[in-house]
């Protein structure tokens, strides 16, 4: 899946480390999410959506 997590994070002026701390995940996980190497669990996806006050489908979308 693709996502615009990097853009959302940059708009808030957060580093990957800071976003990771806010979401209680590692910087490695944030990087893997942003580069599309890893798709989050439903729980984490909703956590991210709540953090940025956006619907999940606005942040994560199917490549097709």
């Amino acid at each position, binding site marked *: 899946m693709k996502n615009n997590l990097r853009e959302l994070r940059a708009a808030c002026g957060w580093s990957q480390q800071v976003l990771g701390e806010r979401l*209680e*995940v*590692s910087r*490695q*996980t944030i*990087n*893997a999410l942003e580069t599309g*190497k*890893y798709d*989050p*669990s439903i729980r*984490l996806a909703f956590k991210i959506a709540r953090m940025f006050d956006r619907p999940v489908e606005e942040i994560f979308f199917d490549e097709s």
Partner: protein
Amino acid sequence: MRHTTGAVLAFAALHLAASTFVEAPSIVMGILLTVLISAPLIWWAYEYQLYVKALDELQSLLSLQAIAISAGVALMIGAVWNVAEKYLGVPHLNAAMLLPIAVLVHATVLSYLARRYQ
């Protein structure tokens, strides 16, 4: 995980010491030795599951993948070596050696998997 090396070394040292200095132990001594020698590994297994539980979802996934692969490789080595012992006459492989083999494979696999997500 920092405790792995210590636990495996403690296990190996106790195992070696017992096999060097203890001959024909009684049932009670045998039970005590088994518990004593296995203790570092049991403690390590408990600590490792606490460690994996504390990881985030990606790191936990990578750890479990590494465990699955290392366990599979160790079992395969044991099985193949057993066949080679029978038909090729290779030296007997002590089953206890499978654990350090699994630990080495686990460390290698985890390192490779982690690098893929850097």
